């Protein structure tokens, strides 16, 4: 698997602080998951069968608007990342979002806030999860799946497609990392605040 190198630090404080190195290590880990995905061998059938219910459950919770329940399924060190391209790095490129557990909770609060006009009235979504594959990973598995999201809002409709990478850990297969790649983000989409 190719590991994307973090950008070498530049500017006056060229010696990287330990804190910065820790942040970049997490970012590198995520970038490596993304960049290395296409090089992976054929998936593990048992793990693929194990991953499928977790991915379908997540899609069902999101489509039902059960965001609080969805929030329960993340580890304390979780990251949700929506890059703008499949070649992006969290430390050098803008992302649509990169949420830690704290901002995930804020996001759920925002969705519930009646004055969050961008999601009130809310988007009605239907997710179609397909092509699930999974491989072993430390303390769990890594899964890749394709995703179609059909969205209706204000009498308008858009359909977006992409793929998602999940790092699921522990007995409950909690989400530690989720990366959602939607190529249309690179060309311009309308109010993407329904994407999670």
């Amino acid at each position, binding site marked *: 698997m190719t590991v994307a190198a973090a950008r070498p*630090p530049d500017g006056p404080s060229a010696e990287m602080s330990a804190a910065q190195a820790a942040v970049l290590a997490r970012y590198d880990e995520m970038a490596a998951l993304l960049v290395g995905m296409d090089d992976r061998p054929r998936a593990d059938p048992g793990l693929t069968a194990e991953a499928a219910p977790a991915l379908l459950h997540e899609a069902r919770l999101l489509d039902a608007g059960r965001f609080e329940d969805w929030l329960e399924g993340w580890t304390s060190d979780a990251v949700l990342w929506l890059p703008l391209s499949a070649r992006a790095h969290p430390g050098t490129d803008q992302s*649509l*979002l990169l949420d830690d557990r704290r901002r995930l909770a804020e996001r759920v609060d925002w969705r519930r806030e009646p004055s*969050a006009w*961008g999601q009130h009235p809310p988007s009605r979504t239907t997710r179609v999860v397909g092509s699930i594959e999974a491989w072993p990973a430390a303390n769990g598995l890594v899964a890749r799946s394709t995703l179609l999201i059909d969205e209706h809002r204000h009498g308008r409709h858009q359909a977006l497609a992409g793929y998602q990478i999940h790092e699921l850990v522990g007995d409950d297969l909690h989400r530690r990392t989720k990366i959602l790649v939607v190529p249309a983000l690179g060309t311009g989409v309308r109010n993407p605040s329904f994407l999670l």
Partner: protein
Amino acid sequence: MTVINSDTATADFEGLVQPHRVHRRIYTDPAIFEMEMTRVFAASWCYVGHESEIPAPGDYRTTTLGLRPVLMTRARDGAVNVLLNRCTHRGTVLAAEASGCAKRFVCPYHGWTFAPDGQLVAIPFPADHAVEDRSTLSLGRLATASYRGFVFATLNAEPEPLDCWLGEAREAFDTIVDRHPGGDIGVMGSPHLLEFVGNWKLSWDNAADGLHATFAHESYNTLGEMVDTETVLARDPGSTPMVSKALRNGHMVVDQRPGIPQGPWATMRRVPFREPLETALVDAGEESLLDLATGSMINLSLFPNLLFVGNQLLVIEPVAVDRTRLQLWLTSAPSAPSEIDLLRLRVDEDFVNFGTPDDLDMFERVQRGLSIPEMEWIDMSRGLPDSDAADGDATIYGPITSEAPQRRYLAHYAKLMTTPAATRAR
């Protein structure tokens, strides 16, 4: 090359922009939109890109300027060119990628080959080609000028010098650039691209609108309240000492700094991965640099297509009368400790996720409302009369609840639409 004198392309524009109100048609009429693409976007200086995006000879980036595909290139001599991205043979768009590096632009249709400075350098099978003077077949060229590394271009046949066109806006422009150590500002790779079903001027009406922050961005301010953070948008617009300025040529400034004496960083919630990076800067004795991680708190709008908001460059790209694409570019501080740019990335996402969706919804709601033919007018009278020098070139100052900036840019817009300048490719 051909000079387009658009005097003849008149529409009954007179009376649509009045001092206190504007007519819905300037947001809904496709014929007006088509005129705007030449009279406003081709005839004004427009922002194209930043020099740091094309550091080496052959580097290029594509964008549009009033729907016209354009190409910003770095030539072998180091000069920046802005060219029409159109083969002079049959009209094929030459560069299809958003950016790249090319020693030559070879047309994929018939192989005509252009240098990064636009010169035609090769035609295949030249023996049977009648063209004798290849210099007449260079790529169309725009007048190009830079300010502090920001590249602007125009098709105006006789443009005002860029410095003059910027005028009083240079003060805010310089402040935004000079807060970066060494005056060194960069632009990161790929932009967010967001579209809305609405006219491009809706984002202009919003850009210096200090009042909407209280209502449209209530959800953003509520997120701040939940963690005892007073966001910059949460201030009472009726009493804040923040200042709005309506400048010549439709430019606008909202200076929020007087309203946030505790500094920009204090207005930010705890973005992801904030603590370790913040601690590292504090431990290094560079706490004062933290303000760089968030915006300058000066919103500068350069009519018609560039807004400085936070650490973003927001480029307004009209697509159709009721469709607009926003390019959101993130600026970097290359000579600051690298923690700053790492923080900027996460700060950048904050408003894009919890503020921008609410703006986009307002734009689309307004566009839907403006579809009602029986309701013709939009009120723009708040803060009238404009106290000082409304008819002259001087800056009009006001509280951030004043609609003077909107009135001023629309008056400039109306002038461009009714007294069109000739445009031409060079």
